[in-house]
């Protein structure tokens, strides 16, 4: 038995040793960057210390008894089995502690529900598997997907996540908000239930399909804050992060102007080389298709058809184009893609993922008259 204990101690030390090279043993909740998140942190610490104190008293009594009241020490068992006074005491004291705890908890909860008088509103829509943001006070509207570097690594067996900065916590287009402004969020979903959580803001809120939830924040410190979806939403639930950048008002105004300008730009429909089409096509694929059809186009047996060798993918491009725009009962309509993206995506799908149709499609071929709306 001693040998087993030694072996066991060795294993623990080994386990601890393995991590020290890049030690990141975070222990506690973050305080966050809003007043509410700080209140929540204080509540957390208060209840934690209450638990620690109760634990010391109860476990103290228990271990005192385990050490001193043992038969091997010749202790003779007392035979008492009831004491109304102590039983009343240990019912009333916890009740009082709970009442004391409920007061600050109620205050913070009321504060969290104060969504009125906001300076701006952002609509957050959860989708499998990315977030969509709509600034209801301006025309800003964009999707926020997991960044391509993380996307490639997490889909490749044996790839090194440490080679990617902010692995799985980075997006292509972060949400941008001004500091010291009350930002109201309205959250919903178009498919399944998601949950929007940025720990530094102090809360998470579910995005339910067909319903709208409200929440708010007021970030005091400029910075980049990261979070993730926290309601199981399917196979890529772990791969739809959230990045919020809080900026000073001036910087924010400049960002708004820049973004609105970019949104007005029409897609560039000029011809591309085959290499360009394939490279851009891969990006479009990684954002829109990879979650279901997989990185190698193999699909999922029994659930999602493979693109490799698929008659639709490798047939006439016009019918593939129509198919993508129409969607199916399982696949959303991809009318949100513009002509340029259609050309790139289709060229990529038809000439990669194990397919060799050999054609290349140019944006002008696939653009519809209204495609430059975007």
């Amino acid at each position, binding site marked *: 038995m001693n040998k087993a204990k030694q072996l*066991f101690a060795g294993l*623990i030390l*080994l*386990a601890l040793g393995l*991590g020290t090279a890049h030690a990141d*043993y*975070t*222990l*506690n909740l973050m305080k966050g960057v809003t007043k509410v998140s700080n209140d*929540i942190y204080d*509540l*957390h610490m208060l*209840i934690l210390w209450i*638990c620690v104190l*109760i*634990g010391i008293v109860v*476990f103290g009594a228990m271990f005192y*008894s385990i050490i001193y*009241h*043992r038969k091997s020490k010749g*202790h*003779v*068992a007392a*035979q008492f089995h*009831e004491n109304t006074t102590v*039983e009343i005491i240990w019912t009333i004291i*916890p009740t009082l502690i*709970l009442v004391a*705890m409920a007061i600050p*908890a109620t205050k*913070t*909860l009321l504060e969290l*529900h104060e969504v009125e008088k906001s300076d701006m509103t952002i609509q957050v829509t959860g989708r499998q598997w990315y977030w969509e943001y709509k600034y209801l006070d301006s025309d800003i509207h964009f999707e926020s997907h997991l960044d391509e570097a993380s996307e490639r690594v*997490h*889909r490749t067996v*044996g*790839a090194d*996540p440490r080679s990617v900065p*902010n*692995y*799985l916590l980075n997006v292509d287009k972060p949400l941008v908000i001004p500091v010291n402004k009350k930002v109201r969020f309205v*959250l919903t979903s178009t498919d*399944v*239930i998601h949950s929007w*959580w940025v720990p530094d803001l102090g*809360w*998470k*809120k*579910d995005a*339910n*399909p*067909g*319903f709208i939830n*409200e929440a708010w924040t007021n970030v005091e410190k400029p910075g980049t804050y990261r*979070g993730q979806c*926290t309601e199981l939403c399917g196979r890529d*639930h*772990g791969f739809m992060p959230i990045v919020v950048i809080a900026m000073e008002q001036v910087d924010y105004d400049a960002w708004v102007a820049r973004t609105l300008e970019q949104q007005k730009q029409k897609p560039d429909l000029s011809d591309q080389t085959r290499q360009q089409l394939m490279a851009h096509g891969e990006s479009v694929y990684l954002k829109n298709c990879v979650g279901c059809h997989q990185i190698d186009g193999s699909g999922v047996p029994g*659930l999602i058809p493979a693109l490799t060798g698929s008659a639709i993918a490798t047939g006439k491009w016009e019918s593939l184009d129509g198919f993508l725009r129409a969607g199916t009962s*399982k696949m959303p309509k991809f009318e949100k893609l513009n002509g340029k993206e259609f050309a790139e995506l289709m060229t990529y799908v038809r000439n990669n993922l194990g397919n060799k149709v050999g054609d290349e499609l140019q944006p002008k071929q696939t653009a519809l008259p209204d495609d430059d709306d975007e």
Partner: protein
Amino acid sequence: MSAAVDEHDHHADDHHDHGPEKGLLRWVITTNHKDIGTMYLLFALAMFFIGGTMAMVIRAELFEPGLQFVDPAFFNSMTTMHALVMVFGAVMPAFVGLANWQIPLMIGATDMALPRMNNMSFWMLVAGVLLLASTLFMEGGAPNGGWTLYPPLVLQPITVGKALPFAIFSVHLLGISSIMGAINIIATIFNMRAPAMKMMDMPLFVWTWLITAFLLIAVMPVFAGAVTMLLTDKFFHTSFFNAAGGGDPVLYEHIFWFFGHPEVYIMILPTFGVASTIIPVFARKPLFGYASMVWATASIAFLSFIVWAHHMFTVGMPIAGELYFMYATMIIAVPTGVKVFNWTATMWKGAMTFETPMLFSIAFVVLFTLGGFTGLMMSIAPSDFQYHDTYFIVAHFHYTLVPASVFILMAAGYFWLPKWTGHMYNEKIGQLHFWLSVISVNILFFPQHFLGLAGMPRRIPDYAVQFADWNMISSVGGFIFGASQLLFLYIVIDTIRGGTGEKVSDEVWEDAAKHGLEWTLPSPTPYHTWTTPPTIVPTEHVLDSH
């Protein structure tokens, strides 16, 4: 394992001790509470290893960030199936097995009140679990929407393949099995007690199971209803949970947790009962506060019906709802605290010895209390906005299930196996099993608190690199914990086959007969017991009533 006392031919009205049927058929057609109890326990043990294997797959994938072994959808199937198998295949059946063995022995009854239904509930359980397990081999894989089976996710054709109707039918079978088991337990306790035993003389294990049985009857039909609505939404175009048709996905969450919260107490109340049975024996003292234990159990059971939405603080409820569910949930800490204080007071000034069952029971009190503390923390709704759906809650409920329910099941095995088999287990290996389990279970689950607080969501197959260190430690703990349980398997088999060879006395443990009727019976327990009800029952825990 139960010895055949005599095997002579007999007539139906022969009142001699009948032996069991010979051969395999004995186990198929048996109506003997000991045989059925044995089957329940061995089945649960098998499921514990199958569910445990799934947990090992999960911990292996999470050992390091990045994709190593399994596809995310299969990972989700593993978390879903691990939970369903452990809850419905391992923990619940194990307690039903204990109830089958122990309740008749403890209350002086010849058998369960409804022996044929008893046989049927067991075999229906087997059918239900096999049906569930068969989904692993179906096109599209096993259910992967989480054990909570939230719509719209589980109804999505791109998420769950052919498995859904099979999983739902399996839930129906398991529900019917549990309800029949519960009816049987209630009927037995109310009708079959030795005339000398009043309600307030019943051992705590019997009390807790009585209350648990009422919880089962109340909530299993609710769950069956919820999953049936999933079925009609999926195949008959109803819209109970489909917003586009006027339904509400959150409604499912409410119905599920109306079942789900009592369900977690179904797994912990009998645990309390076993702990309240074991601790007095090894402290050589009567249980402290018997009556308050009974009332605390009943209050916890009552409260379990009115706190369900604390599983849904972030779902978007009106402020009044959130406040109500927060306050109601906090109140549960009071009766639960009473129980912990009572166990501590039972140990206080005892003459304790530390055989394996007592070690597991003490670890239960300490580690269950830790799980209770995190439960209290999560009852604070604003804080729960941070903890919800992170590894913090994973740590919380595993503390209340593994080093609580599972440890107590182990304790019960060590405690009663000598009685059932007449053989003593190997104490040295038992203690080794205990120390390996108690250390590794903490290496496994304690770091998960830190992961949750640092921001790691649950149910993800891959994670950001800052979570790597604690995940690796947690996985190492998991592997040691998993491997250590093979010792338990060894001990169970070894004890059935003769154990240390030492002949155990009827009492098995020193002065155990003062604490429970079962210790006045011979070891091993004969195939039929209490054909004449006992006239004197142990009443040391009841103040001034006799």
